[in-house]
């Protein structure tokens, strides 16, 4: 194997054969090592959340990856290529510029209130820019009903959170659910579990970047779509009640419908694979 071994011959075939072998070993080994090194670098650079979100996003079924503009009917069926980060999207500014969507404000969908003073993330967290430059982050009505009274695990003040990264978590009966952050920034304070807001964040960009967040009329289209998905997710486990158009969601869904596959429902609604 090595030239110092007696079974090694300096014949062209031998050199070629072992040359190829060692080349393969080096290529495989070095790339494996590169992957290891890059992974450890990523770990140091705290890239887990972003990569996790990208990995999850990749694994979403296509209908989950629908573009917000497709939800509102602004464009035909379109899948988001940017992991719901409209800040990187080339098309999003064009849609905004066209301003096709009426700035209609509808606060109540399916018996739930979605105040217009805030921006909604696709993972059901909302963000509201406060006058002092901070951003208040909370959970929307639909999500709250899904989570019920599950205890929340909030990050320590001082923690940095990233858009689409994990902001806080709930411990539910079927496991933990993480809520995606709608904002980049540092957590300043945390609200109570039952409180109206969850986090106070100082946005790292100075102010709240809202490009990737839903607002106005988009919210209705989105929530309607979410309710449809919720229906589908809960469908195989029939419950006693029916959600007719205009019906309202019960306050604490898990308690009202304990036999449902909540793990799956949370995954569908909170964008987690």
């Amino acid at each position: 194997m090595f030239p110092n071994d007696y079974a090694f011959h300096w014949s062209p075939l031998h050199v070629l054969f072992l040359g190829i072998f060692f080349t393969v070993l080096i290529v495989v080994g070095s790339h494996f090592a590169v992957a290891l090194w890059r992974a450890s670098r990523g770990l140091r650079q705290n890239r887990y959340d972003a990569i996790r979100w990208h990995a999850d996003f990749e694994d979403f079924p296509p209908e989950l990856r629908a573009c917000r503009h497709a939800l509102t009917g602004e464009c035909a069926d379109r899948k988001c290529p940017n992991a719901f980060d409209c800040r990187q999207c080339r098309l999003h500014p064009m849609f905004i510029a066209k301003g096709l969507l009426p700035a209609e404000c509808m606060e109540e969908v399916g018996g739930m209130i979605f105040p217009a003073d805030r921006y909604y993330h696709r993972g059901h967290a909302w963000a509201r820019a406060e006058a002092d430059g901070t951003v208040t982050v909370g959970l929307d009505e639909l999500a709250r009903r899904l989570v019920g009274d599950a205890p929340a695990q909030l990050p320590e003040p001082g923690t940095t959170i990233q858009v689409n990264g994990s902001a806080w978590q709930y411990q539910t009966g079927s496991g933990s659910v993480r809520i995606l952050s709608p904002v980049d920034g540092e957590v300043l304070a945390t609200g109570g579990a039952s409180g109206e807001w969850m986090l106070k964040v100082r946005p790292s960009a100075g102010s709240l970047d809202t490009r990737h967040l839903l607002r106005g009329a988009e919210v209705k289209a989105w929530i309607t779509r979410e309710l449809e998905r919720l229906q589908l997710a809960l469908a195989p486990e029939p419950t006693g009640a029916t959600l007719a158009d205009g019906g309202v969601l019960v306050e604490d869904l898990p308690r009202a419908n304990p036999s449902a596959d909540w793990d799956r429902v949370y995954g569908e609604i909170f964008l987690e694979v």
Partner: protein
Amino acid sequence: MASQSTFDRHLIIRGLERCSTPRFLLWLLPWVLLLAFGLYGAGLCLVRGLNQTNMDNRFAFGLWIFLDLTVIALGAGAFFTGFLLYILKKKELKAVINSAVVIGLVCYSGAVAVLAVDVGQPLRAWFTFWHPNTHSMLAEVTFCITCYLTVLVIEYLPVILRNRKLRQIPSFLLFEHELHKLMYVFAGVGTFLSFFHQGSLGGLYGVLHGRPFAYRAGFALWPSTFFLFILSAAAVGPSFIALSTWVVSKISRKRLARPEVYDLLGKVSGRLLILYVLAKTVDTVIWINATSPDRGFPAAMFYSWKPFGTWLLFAEIALFGLLPALILLDGKRRRRMPWLISAAALASAGIALNRFVMTIQTLALPTLPFDRFLTYFPSWQETATFLAVVAFGVLVYSFSFRYAVLFPQEKELNVAQPSQPEPELVAVGD
């Protein structure tokens, strides 16, 4: 639907419907038993020696080598799908690449495990690395199989690291992410290795110039079987991926890949298969008329021993080669599942038959003029060892299928359709 009895649901990717845990365990049970039984048989062979097999000085290779060659040929789906996806950028095959990688891993690791039992002194197997005889096709095989198995393990890592639980470990997920980015390198190296591996397995027999039934003239170091094995494995690999996907979808009662994926696999397989049939025919004609007679053996003689008649040659080339190739080349038929699957099954059987002919028939045919035709039938220990590999494969695949995403299209293809137009869902609130 995940029911209350699915205790391992936190390990299963959300959105993938898997049977309940007891049912899964029930499915595993026979395979685990088979594995245990097979390991017992293999253990006997290791502890007491190869006298536990029915191999003998004439049938120095038996069931194990035949099956090694076959599973490795079928496992070629892994390298060839990887090649098509990562090198030729056939994006559709992303739908089956993970499954292909698992199949490849199972086939190769099973083959290596069986080889470790098959050799008389497994503790010395590393001598091949230390003192390689570079003229030997078997040295080439050994190097390729170990390197490729390493590559397959690396390729398998991302599949398994994306398991729902494992991906929550930051270092695993990051490593998976980085590995995945470099996957084209591993796929490329794997393709190279696997090409050589398939070829050297073919060369294994083609170089036996003392065995005119197997001997073939060729190019440089490599006899024609070197290239025929590559071609046949490449041709049948996609067929087997289609076949296995279909089988898994039947067993799991799920749609796993879009028809276009099947169609593409069939098309690739058909085109390569017809090429292979042509090459094999030319090779056979040359062998019958030149290679074999030159070494003193009229080729007709090889078929004079029952039951190995010329029907084998016909079956191998026409029935299991040409026929599936024609089916797969006909777009209309190919797009109909029964046709596609039948053709894929025929092609897979064909490659098994080819490997059988190259191993068992080669050894059964006498060379010395006063020699006899011999037969061989594997012992239960041999069969059990092989079955252990099958069980091992099924187990690895089952676990992978349950806890990892082997078919990325599965989720969207199996979105639960509402059973009623207006499902009862939520209480009419108050």
